[in-house]
């Protein structure tokens, strides 16, 4: 069936961030290596919640009054460390051997 083939092609192409993240191997640590220092700063001083926009893995999600940090999907790129306008993110490397494990590129 032609329709089925097109569907299959679409499935192979990761379009959403969830589909893209699903392609990656992670060995999550039990503790987060990313810490929002003061959630009040996000509420009071950061109307745009910029980290929720530029983070390439959608690690940061704003949940009404606090920032949810999905560190398990972090690429360890460092963008949030440099890009947070209020230097409100404490950024460390995950424990040795943990975090993202690139297989190809």
């Amino acid at each position, binding site marked *: 069936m032609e329709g089925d083939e097109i569907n299959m*092609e679409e499935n192979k192409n990761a379009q959403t961030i969830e589909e893209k993240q699903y392609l990656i191997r992670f060995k999550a640590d039990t503790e987060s290596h990313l810490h929002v220092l003061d959630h009040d700063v996000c509420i009071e001083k950061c109307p745009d919640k910029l980290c929720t926009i530029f983070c390439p893995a*959608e690690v940061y999600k704003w949940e009404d009054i606090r920032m949810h940090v999905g560190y398990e999907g972090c690429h360890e790129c460092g963008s949030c460390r440099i890009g947070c306008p209020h230097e409100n993110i404490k950024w460390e490397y995950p424990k040795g051997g943990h975090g993202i*494990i690139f297989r190809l590129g």
Partner: protein
Amino acid sequence: MPEKFDVIVVGAGPSGTSCAYKCAQAGLKVLQIERGEYPGSKNVMGGVLYRKQMEAVIPEFWKDAPVERAIVEQRAWLLDKDSMVTTSVKNNSWEEEPCNNYTILRAKFDQWFANKAVEAGSLLINETVVLECIVEEGKVVGVRTDRPDGDVYADVVVLADGVNSLLSKKLGYHNELKPEEVALTVMEVLNLPKEVINDRFNVTDNQGVTIELFGDATKGNLGTAFIYTNKESLNLGVGTTLSSMIKAKMKPYELIEYVKNHPMVSPLIKGAESAEYLAHLIPEGGYYSIPKLYGNGVLLVGDAAQMVNGIHREGSNMAMASGTLAAETIIAAKEKGDFSEDTLSSYKTAILDSFIGKDLKKYKDANHTFEEQPQYFKDYIPMINRAASGFLTVDGTSKRDKQREALKTFTKEKGTFTVVKDLYRAWKVMK
């Protein structure tokens, strides 16, 4: 008494491994520490490996290394929404050994390379984070790791810990990077059968193509997209300065979809299977961002030393060359038995005298200028597209009038004076 080495190298990317390999080969006792499960597991690159600087570390490496394709064609696309103006240089002699450069997949290549250093006598320890340098009486004497009893000592520590280099910041060698000093780049590895790649890119099995895309690929922001051919996959990526990403409020994963769905791009990747998605920062600050490169018992190499030429997308070659120069400095210091700041200062001289220092100096103002003057990417690329398309659309207008119209595309919108000023400014920072 903990074990002591001649050299500790932190990081197993191209800069660290070049240094570890060269030092081990000279008979020095080398420890290389990598935080990932294996070398390459944290590393990302578009995929162009330059032969010259790699060959200086391992002669005829291509006979053994996991390289993908020899690059015989380099294309540049000035992209608008539904058109593009392109240039290309193709030279089949680039496929003859020694080739000009290759595409590689970093996770595979870095493992192979680090293993070469191990074969040369270096000790590699994976899955270990270096938390800080151990400093005694103003001298770096070793590193503290996240392993139990994790202190290790050496005469000299080489920081090859990548763009974020937390270690050099802790030593005070580097201020925190600013969003305009780094490019946030995301990439997908897209699987396609070898024959399909050969057909779509007009190449044979071992020939590769690179395409750099400017303009609409980054929605007019300072940055580029790229498509590189591997044996049976493509690396497709896009990046802009982090500051542009923030200013334009772009989500990187949406920007890469924008590129994938662009009418000039989508036929090339049709039917491809996404195999991996990767994000990474590229140090783009250039000459002005170079940190303090040496100190008592310590040297900085590669991305940690901000050695990337963003204009020519060169970085891994500078990493290898800096690792090699660091090794030469260390070998000379070992002979002298002196790892003081004074002795290690010859490393900085060597860097500045090499193509690294010269090229970074040549383009020292380019990135800042294009960041502050967005018209080059935002306005001129669409104008070039309109002028060229208009010129080649046959509609009964005389060629002389066509020429006039093409020129007017620029001067009407900007004014002659502004165009001349913009051209002069671009020439000045690129010359």
